[in-house]
């Protein structure tokens, strides 16, 4: 997509494609469901009669505030659950996955949580945004694959893993040029290259 296509699309009226018939009674996980797009995605799911919507949040208190907001705007109580998850910690990802594996079913894992930061730091062996936006989400996806496959078999459905990406992925040429495209991880982990 070119920058012009991206901008042009901004003015398009988008449809809401879920309803009681396609999400009713099903179970969803929305990471970063306490704010922004995650919160609104969770609200759409609750509105469309989802059976259980788990929203993850770094801070449980902000997740609880989001839950109260969804309940008051949709009028549906006890559908949303708030689970703690911090993508800067693999231990947190593993604990979350272990808990989620105990659910009856998972119809979609929506990996929305992400970070945009210009403070350089290494967490779990990589630059913070690489850990939070890429490594941890794929770790979580891998750990939940058995449960998703089990759901597919038991309920004859096709569960989804939805990665929330960005059109900026297609505009990363300049960033790539900084350190070359051969070893993106190593370059980003070098503060001098990352800050250039």
């Amino acid at each position: 997509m070119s920058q012009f296509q991206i901008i042009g699309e901004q003015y398009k009226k988008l449809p809401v494609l879920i309803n009681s018939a396609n999400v009713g009674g099903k179970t969803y996980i929305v990471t970063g469901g306490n704010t922004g797009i995650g919160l609104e995605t969770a609200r759409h799911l609750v509105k469309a009669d989802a059976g259980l919507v788990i929203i993850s949040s770094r801070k449980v208190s902000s997740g609880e505030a989001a839950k109260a907001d969804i309940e008051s705007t949709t009028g549906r109580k006890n559908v949303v659950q708030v689970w703690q998850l911090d993508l800067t910690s693999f231990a947190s990802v593993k604990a979350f996955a272990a808990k989620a594996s105990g659910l009856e079913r998972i119809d979609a894992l929506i990996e929305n949580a992400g970070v945009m930061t210009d403070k350089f730091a290494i967490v779990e062996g990589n630059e913070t945004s690489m850990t939070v936006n890429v490594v941890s989400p794929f770790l979580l996806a891998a750990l939940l694959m058995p449960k998703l496959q089990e759901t597919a078999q038991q309920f004859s459905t096709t569960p989804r893993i939805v990665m929330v990406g960005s059109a900026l992925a297609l505009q990363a040429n300049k960033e790539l040029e900084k350190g070359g495209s051969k070893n993106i991880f190593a370059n980003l982990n070098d503060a001098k290259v990352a800050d250039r």
Partner: protein
Amino acid sequence: MNQWLTRLSSYPLTKLVQLYALREWATRYPVEKTNVIMNMTAPGVCSTGLARDTNARTRALIGTIRFIFARTPEEGSRTTVHGVIAGSDSHGKFLSGCQIKE
């Protein structure tokens, strides 16, 4: 136009790696084998708290761009909701504006 994009720190790069990982995942784990679809949705420019951890100059730039043509988080979330119901043909694909793009 390209200038402001370079000031968003490492974010675009991580999103590119995420897209590469999606492609690789889809090749290794086809829907026929797993019955699980993985896709990627792009919400467009939305007025959310995403850039809250960046410096004042970046925030000012993003604020201006958002002022001109941002979607609300609710409008942006419609693209995410699309990913939830998109079919097998969305496996490993980049979705934008509620359509399968590339």
